[in-house]
């Protein structure tokens, strides 16, 4: 068995050597940048000393984890991270679906194409520019939102310096930026719905709303579930850049999440072991959530990602 495998491999290498040469740099890339860092995960259980290197530093067991769970930040970070994620999921997940369903029934082609095209555009704006625009539009003196508030006789608010507004700012600007792009996949799925179903429904006198609920939604259900599972797996990870950029001394209570803390502890305070431990804790939870969501979904609907 082993012998024949080696022979077959040898023959394949001789025959397809070009393919092996081609894929070699990619294999090296993954080995170095995806698998080699796994070696560094042991830092989570070690007291890292630059002098001794990763291997030579002494083991300390779960000390970093205990320190994290006991720290005053733990509750705050978990609350913020999960809070922002759930809020994002509740707002950001259904809206692109509703948008795609509605767009599907726009009869004016020009309107349809225009809305579609401009809705993708914000996705391509960088996070830095996005945050710059948030600052501009929420400016206490000159931002449009405060101008509008003034119009209705309300006093101006410096939204970005108030912790209670942070989540909403984060989530709704995220919806603005992502909903068009996220809807593409549903639009694609909707275009695959059998026309005959719709024709039959029309003949039977079904209204458009009824067609949405009884034809469109069931047809795109597998797509919805697949994306939902994937989203569940990232409930514990709130993207670093946007939170980091919108963070300031006044809203930091609400604007610290696990990823910004990992950065803060690791690269600002140079506490490598502690930072690695928090990152590891986060990935493990994410992995568990993904597997759990997948299992639940499999149980309920026979649909699953893996």
């Amino acid at each position, binding site marked *: 068995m082993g012998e024949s495998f080696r022979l077959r491999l040898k023959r394949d290498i001789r025959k397809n050597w070009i393919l092996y040469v081609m894929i070699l740099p990619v294999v090296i890339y993954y080995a170095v940048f995806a698998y080699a860092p796994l070696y560094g995960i042991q830092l989570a259980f070690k007291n890292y000393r630059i002098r001794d290197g990763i291997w030579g530093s002494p083991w300390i067991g779960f000390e970093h984890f205990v320190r994290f769970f006991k720290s005053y930040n733990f509750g705050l970070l978990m609350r913020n991270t999960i809070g922002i994620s759930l809020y994002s999921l509740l707002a950001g997940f259904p809206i692109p679906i509703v948008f795609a369903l509605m767009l599907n029934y726009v009869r004016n082609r020009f309107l349809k194409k225009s809305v579609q095209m401009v809705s993708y555009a914000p996705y391509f704006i960088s996070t830095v520019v996005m945050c710059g625009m948030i600052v501009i539009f929420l400016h206490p003196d000159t931002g449009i939102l405060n101008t509008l508030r003034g119009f209705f006789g309300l006093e101006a608010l410096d939204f970005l310096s108030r912790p209670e507004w942070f989540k909403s700012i984060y989530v709704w600007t995220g919806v*603005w930026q992502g909903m068009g792009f996220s809807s593409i996949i549903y639009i694609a799925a909707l275009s695959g719905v059998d026309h005959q179903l719709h024709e039959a429904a029309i003949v039977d006198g079904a209204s458009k709303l009824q067609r949405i609920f009884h034809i469109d939604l069931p047809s795109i259900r597998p797509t919805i579930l697949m994306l939902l599972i994937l989203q569940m797996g990232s409930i514990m990870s709130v993207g670093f850049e946007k939170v980091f950029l919108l963070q300031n001394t006044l809203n930091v209570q609400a604007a610290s999440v696990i990823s910004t803390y990992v*950065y803060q502890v690791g690269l600002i305070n140079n506490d490598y072991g502690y930072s690695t431990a928090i990152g590891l804790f986060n990935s493990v939870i994410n992995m568990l959530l993904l597997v759990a969501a997948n299992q639940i979904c499999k149980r309920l609907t026979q649909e699953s990602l893996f």
Partner: protein
Amino acid sequence: MKKNGMPVKILHSDRVFDAVNVLVMCVLLLIFVWPLWFVLIASFSAPSQVWLGNVVLLPKEFTTAAYEAVLDYGAIWVGYRNTIFYTAAGTVLNLVMTICAAYPLSRRDFMPRNVLMFLFMLTMYFSGGLIPTYLVVGKLHLLNTPWAMMIPGAVSIYNVIITRTYFVNNIPQSMHEAAKLDGANSFQFLLRVVLPLSKPVLAVIGLYYAVGHWNDFFSALIYINDKNLMPLQSFLRDLLMTNKMSLSNMQGLDAAASEAKLQLAQTLKYSAIIVSTVPVLCIYPFIQKYFVKGVMIGAVKE
């Protein structure tokens, strides 16, 4: 729906639905377009008019002062130069690596195909984390070099999957056999047949990679200290997210002059946004038509 000749009564509820739908779409159109439009017109308006909130639909007191200010702001051009380099070189590297991964993996006669695919895809579900990755990049002496902006993200598995799926579905195995009979090796076949047939998918993933490089802020934050190597986004962050610019050089100015300076600093933000975002938004309409296709190929479950 196609008309099938049968007179179908238009339901009252459908009329309401259509009206609401069109209304919602028009509001959405406004919500998507206006913020971008506002930044554009504000960048061409007199700072004092923007400050007073008079700029709503069209530029007021048209001026290019904000663009002149950007031209004078040297740092942004250093960033521009660096970002153009990172984007061009980085995207070429990305495309080469992605093709090098996707093509062998698309060949049914490539023996380690499934093992490698599995090992590559596994990386979607875990990562060493920030510090272990940082230490690897440091060990390779890439910190504070332009390479740190390109090499750690040289391949994205999502794009490999998209490209591979495209190759599998669009390049029939028989074509490869025919080329082999004509004496072409795999590499010649890839260059002369596969790649020319795969322009749509290469355009889509090329765009994804290029936009990723253009907008990349994180890599520089983590890996780069040297001001001369900073990309555009890092300078933009200084300009947009802090008020450093507006507060510097204000000594010795009277109230009116410093107010004008403050206002100009504010409009400088608008012109900086435009100058840095226009390249991306310019290529976007041309490639936009490939998006749906790209996403659809990517959505095919393995």
